[in-house]
């Protein structure tokens, strides 16, 4: 039980370092817009690993999950309502 948990943490850490290597490595390959997409996808994946495994999001009180989701939604509101204005302003 104990060892499996510690192993989980170590595996997560290895996964994080592998993701870091991928994001760093691919950025030296010219992929145009896909570089940005890969970088952002990997950053989100790393953040989720940390939140779920290290911060034990799903093993905390249900309210904690609600707080995390609300914070994410609020940020999404800022981005989703403000960003389009900068994009479509020229129309």
């Amino acid at each position, binding site marked *: 039980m104990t060892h499996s948990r510690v192993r989980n943490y170590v595996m997560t850490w290895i996964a994080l370092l592998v993701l870091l290597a991928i994001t760093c490595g691919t950025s030296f390959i010219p992929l145009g817009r896909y570089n940005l997409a890969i970088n952002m996808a990997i950053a989100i994946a790393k953040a989720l690993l940390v939140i779920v495994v290290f911060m034990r999001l799903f093993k905390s009180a249900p309210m904690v999950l609600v707080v995390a989701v609300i*914070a994410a939604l609020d940020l999404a*509101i800022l981005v989703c309502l403000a960003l*389009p204005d900068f994009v479509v302003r020229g129309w």
Partner: protein
Amino acid sequence: MSILTTGLAGDVPPAHSVRVETPSNYLNAKFTIGSWLATHDHKRIAILFAVSITAFFFIGGAAATMIRLDLATPAGDFVKAETYNKLFTMHGVIMVWFFLIPSIPATLGNFLVPLMIGARDLAFPRLNLTSWYLYVGGSIFTIVAMIAGGVDTGWTFYAPFSTMFSNTHVIYVLAGVFVVGFSSILTGLNIIVTVHTMRAPGMTWFRLPLFVWAQYATAAILVLATPVLAMTLVLVTVERLFGIGIFNPALGGDPLLFQHLFWFYSHPAVYIMVLPAMGVVSELIAASAHNPVFGYKTMAFAIIAIAVLGFLVWGHHMFVSGQSMYAGVVFSFMSFLVAIPSAVKVFNWTATLWHGRITYTAPMLYALGFVGLFTIGGMTGLFLASLALDVHLTDTYFVVAHFHYIMVGGTVSAYLGGIHFWWPKITGRMYSDRWARFAAILLFVGFNFTFFPQYLLGIAGMPRRYHAYPPEFQTLNVLSSAGALILALGYLLPLLYLGWSLFRGARAPANPWDATGLEWQTPSPPPVHNFATPPVVTEPPYAYRMAALTRDVVDAREGTR
């Protein structure tokens, strides 16, 4: 609950001492200055907040008085243009951040939330005290900066004016507001955690008084919106100090980015100001009508709906700003949506009177004043949400009148009503209801006198933040200035009779209004840890029964004099 009597720390009086002749309470537990300035008692911290926000209210009010004096003549003869600009900036900054935002949450909320949910204190008492020190430190710092040099950006700090063109003490004021923002966040965090974790046995979510619901929703907005303001202020500082182009197009920035970020905070901030007021008024009307609040659950959901929708409407401040037309349409639609829960609340307050036994005490007069002024303010908000009308009305006195109806007519009325309603609980003294009713009526009259003409000025096309104006606007401006004098008198009056009651007022009974709610079941003023025995809740809120009404409340209060 069994560990209660053994698990208490420090200076808690033993339970039996609560019932002796001069009961020990939070006010007479200790008298030293240190016992106030280092207190962890939410009730004492609430009073620290109340005293400080009152001081700032009168400083901000003094600025407003000078503004109105200056506007009595078209040429603005009283002060110079620079001074005028600094005055309205000072008025806005002080009233928004140092009075309205902390007004109800940090005073009445701080005092009452633990009492209403049956807790001994907030979850984080030291954080609560930290919040007060941050607030006082930040606001005194700002006021010194504003009096020593002044700031002329308006409370909105629009870039690039604030970042590149103003020659005044912008950075200091930003720093002060930043620190006060942290105070808001800490208060909000404390209230959320308290409501979640410290409710008494039996106090389910749908037994919470609407006041607590409102504080909870407000706290959520404080926590989620304030950090965006904090970051905006940091970015303004960075551009101003280091010339990094974030907002100023000359450096490669985008001025609308500032407006988006600023209003992302500042529109929800309007709800930070008015939601707690709605909570107060729900309590006041139910208690004075001796009637359960009409549609309690609807009222609770309406509070949450307003808080959520409040985050989706900020772009209605930017209809003529050069924002995309399509963004304008979306934000206009959202703004109409937020009007629905607000309207439902007004209807439900009105319906709460139905089949009641209404006593017209001072708190009730303030509450009715709130409903009236909030209704007018809310209805005129619909003009501003209507895109084509907003094009004409925005940045005119119509907007000034609109938000003063909400924030002064609404929030300040509710705040004063709440202070009057819970004054016996907070201080243990009664005040002169006759004077209080007089003040309430005076304020209502003075308020309409001051601000109704401003709607007409706005429709006629007078822009806001004008130090001088064309002569055809003078009549209405003089009316408004005259009303401001009545209003100023109305605000000074409660200081006198409430101050008098502190020393000479009759001792208040535990429940002078015959109201429901846990805060009325503990003595006035409450003991240090709020309840002699931990309350257990078995009833829904506002359980005003017909039987309880056979005893006439007015008589009960007469008996205490």
